[in-house]
């Protein structure tokens, strides 16, 4: 997996946090930036706090390794990207293949026997076959490196190198606080 940055304008980007570094590899966990857990009802459905939603999110389960020639440190936030065509190919592989095989098997069974129970069994079998085919196709995609996210740039906001540099620059550039500034600092959360 290469760490070279592709063209950012044609990349689906996401933010991840470095959780472990070992032997030239950085392990990253994607951050949940929107959708479930971010809406106004997050506190009531449990998605935004430890509970059903947190278990369902399984952020830790989506942990993945990345080559680390850029010296990423634990706690750093980085922007990662995947090619949009890869996203489309992955979605088609995972979802369209099993659906097509299931519907085809169901259509054949319905045409041949016309029984709900047989059609149900045929569709379930077709779904299973489709998932197996999807697994084979996904392995081919993975072998070509189509499913691998790429490191694009550091995102900041973590406890890593960039955050430290930013804090150092802020503290060295900011003038001595006046009376108004100190009041503003008190008001600002």
């Amino acid at each position, binding site marked *: 997996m290469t760490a070279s940055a592709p063209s950012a304008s044609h990349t*689906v980007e996401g933010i991840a946090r470095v959780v472990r570094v070992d032997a030239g590899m950085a392990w990253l966990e*994607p951050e*949940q930036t*929107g*959708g*479930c857990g*971010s*809406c106004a009802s997050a506190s009531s*459905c449990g*998605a935004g706090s430890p509970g059903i*939603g947190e278990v*369902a*999110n*399984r952020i830790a*389960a*989506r942990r*993945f390794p990345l080559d680390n020639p850029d010296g990423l440190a634990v706690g750093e936030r980085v922007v990662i990207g*995947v090619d*949009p065509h*890869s*996203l*489309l190919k*992955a*979605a*088609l*592989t*995972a*979802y*369209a293949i*099993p*659906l097509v095989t*299931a*519907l085809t098997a*169901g*259509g054949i069974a*319905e045409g041949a026997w016309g029984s*709900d129970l047989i*059609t*149900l069994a045929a*569709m*379930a079998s077709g*779904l299973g076959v489709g*998932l197996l085919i*999807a*697994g084979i196709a*996904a*392995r081919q*995609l*993975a072998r070509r490196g189509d*499913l*691998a*996210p790429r490191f694009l740039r550091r995102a900041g906001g973590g406890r890593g190198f960039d955050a430290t540099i930013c804090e150092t620059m802020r503290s060295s550039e900011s003038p001595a606080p006046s009376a108004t500034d100190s009041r503003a600092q008190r008001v600002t959360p």
Partner: protein
Amino acid sequence: MKEFALMMIGAALVNNVILARFLGLCSFMGVTTRIDTAVGMGLATTFVMTVSAMADWAVQRYLLEAFGLGYLRTITFILVIASTVQFTELVIRKVSPGLFRMLGIYLPLIATNCAVLGVALLVVEGRMNFIGSTLFAFASSLGFSLVMIIFAGLRERLALAEVPRLFAGPPIGFIVASLLAMAFMGFSGIAAS
């Protein structure tokens, strides 16, 4: 065959899940900032909606109706949908960890998508046979995906347009959604000859 074709067109376009039934509006507004993510979400929803409609039909026919437990329908369907999402997540993770990393983000969102439950309840109320129910759910989910992708395309263009500050963000999004809904009302005039 013609009956199935008309039913599918009706479910996808005339009685569109989002624009006519107003279901699944969370993901409609939340995951349509880019076409790529809208396609991913649309395909994932299509899969889950179709598979859970199959499972819901079987549960309704062979469990709830058979034992007179119709009053448990909604809660049972919620359980079936959550199980389908978990099953899909487990299978994708087992079959391909790479796919799971790339697409896993959409699955928890679908578990709380009211469109999936809404279509399952419509299937039961329609009293269709198994293949009819499955095709109805499949067509409804195709309509859902179509609207998601169209809306994502419009929002990508809106991001480049100069929008008055008062309307920037969600307000212009809702205005565009209403125009899209009005455009889809044109399908209600379709007549089978």
